[in-house]
């Protein structure tokens, strides 16, 4: 393990966390809902991918289909959640919303257990992605490079979508002041639905991408949702850039712990959270409003 390969594997570890956390923070920033069910959406993405990839010999096209299907199905699931539950609770307090989405977490997880069973399953990557390559004299797994690229594409895409597009402008307006947004003629209901769908799609995408690297079971979401919640908090609630910074920080510090301080593995993240919350209670970029981050 050299410094460079540790760094790359850390970034690759951080990318799925970023995807999950950015969806979470986007939804929070615009709608003001901390969506507990996000973790179960992530699991659904992963389980779907294992089913699609596991049913054949993994090739690049099936892999792409699996990833896209994961994102699409989970987006639909998120939009269903928004229309059936979340929309009716906007006027109630935060805790009601947390509890309602916690209930959805249990329902989705229970349904996933019913469909996929409780056992964990593992799948292989397409052959072409399971190798490794040489960068500056160190061996780096190809899949890590793919993850880094996907992370970069999504980060840039989100930035452009929020800051440069018409949709992004209405999203920012609603995040600032929902009533005013409605007054100037924005269809807030539709924008919020789309944001919920987009955020959920990011969770599904992360799940599908991580599926070949871990053993997938319906309870996979617990550990992951905790980590992504923590990333949202240390990045600053509602800040997409903050979640990127925090996810990379967590990923890289974890990779360094694995390489140089094994006894800290699995804990670096919690230590980081404690330190950052003590120093900056509002998170790294907590003061930044959505879009201006």
């Amino acid at each position: 393990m050299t410094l460079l390969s540790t760094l790359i594997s850390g970034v690759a570890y951080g990318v799925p966390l970023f995807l999950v956390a950015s969806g979470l923070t986007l939804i929070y920033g615009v709608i003001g809902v901390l969506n507990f069910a996000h973790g179960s959406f992530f699991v659904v993405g992963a389980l779907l991918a294992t089913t699609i990839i596991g049913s054949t010999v993994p090739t690049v096209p099936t892999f792409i289909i699996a990833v896209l299907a994961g994102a699409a199905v989970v987006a639909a699931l998120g939009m269903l959640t928004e229309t059936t539950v979340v929309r009716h609770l906007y006027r109630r307090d935060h805790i009601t919303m947390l509890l309602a989405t916690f209930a959805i977490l249990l329902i989705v997880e229970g349904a996933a257990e019913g469909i996929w069973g409780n056992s964990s399953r593992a799948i292989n990557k397409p052959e072409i992605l399971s190798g490794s390559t040489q960068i500056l004299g160190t061996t780096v797994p190809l899949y890590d490079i793919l993850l880094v690229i996907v992370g970069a594409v999504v980060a840039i895409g989100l930035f452009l979508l929020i800051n440069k597009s018409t949709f992004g402008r209405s999203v920012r307006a609603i995040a600032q002041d929902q009533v005013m947004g409605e007054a100037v003629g924005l269809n807030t209901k539709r924008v919020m639905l789309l944001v919920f769908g987009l955020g959920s799609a990011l969770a599904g995408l992360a799940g599908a991408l991580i599926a070949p690297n871990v053993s997938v079971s319906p309870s996979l979401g617990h550990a992951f949702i905790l980590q992504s919640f923590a990333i949202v908090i240390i990045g600053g609630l509602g800040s997409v850039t903050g979640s990127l910074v925090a996810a990379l920080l967590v990923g890289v510090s974890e990779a360094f712990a694995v390489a140089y301080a094994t006894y800290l593995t699995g804990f670096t993240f919690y230590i980081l959270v404690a330190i950052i919350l003590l120093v900056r209670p509002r998170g790294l970029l907590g003061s930044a409003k959505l879009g201006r981050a």
Partner: protein
Amino acid sequence: MSVPVRNPAPPKSTAPPLETGSSRSRFDLRPIYEPLIFLSATTVAYFVMPPNMQYVLGIAVIYALLATSLGVLFGWTGIYTFGHAAFFGIGAYATALLKEQAWGPLAFLGISAVVAVIAAMLIGLIGQRLAKVEFAMLTMIVGQIAYLLTFRVPALQGDNGIYGIPRGDVFGIDITPPASFWWYSIIVVAIVMGVLRRIHLSAFGESLNAIRDDAVKAAAIGIPVKSLRLAAFGLAGGVAGLAGGLFAQQGSIVTPSTLSFAFSGQIIIMALLGGMMGFWGPALGAILFQFINALVFGNSPHGTLVLGIILLAVVMLFPSGVLGALARLRDLLMRTRSKR
């Protein structure tokens, strides 16, 4: 934990913060007769039940205490926590780790409570500067750390847990037989519930309600918001720890599941099911939950699914729980009667 309190309370407020209502509550007998009703009702139920249901009720009354301790935070003070199982687990493990000692069960309960109070105060101190939702997330994370530690610290034995925790004897009476243990646990639970009820009715309890309703105004009338929140957190943690100690003695085994995130969620569901607004709501909810759990979907493979549906229904249709629904029903009956 703290919502933006722009004007911190003036430092000298030694007098009881709220004068109104406290004079009435000084001679209030509710902290005595309500726990007695609770004790007699559950005990009668216990001795007419078949043994397998006795077992369920034995755990249910311990969970009633645990859910009430969560009520101190959610219902009384408006502090949201998603890691309450951690304190229950800390209490349970404290008793479990001392199993070789011969200090008697009551001493273990005391130690469990004290250890949990210390842990709760530490977390409360760390979280003091955080806003509501952030604090809820911090408790969730801390709870997860505690859960992971049970696998990392060799003395805690990981997945196997610690077993063989003795019950011992209290004032010379052996509490090993189930019936004796029932008396021991229900008396402990009833006494602690009585103490909590007294605190609930005290000036301290009323100050907590004021903080819940409006922290900024509470600070403005001289309530030391930060320290009272910390005290509420310590109190809730301590009672949860005591319940954990009792749970360890009851089952004579402690496993990491007592600290899990899922269990934290269950405690919230119990308290919500009964209703957070009344003192006895969470306790009622815990007992109901235990029986629903055992009778309806305890062994069903779709337990999680059913649990989620119940929670969603409660949150969306009966946000004030069973007690709230009963109160609404009573109001409705009163109104129809007065119309005649």
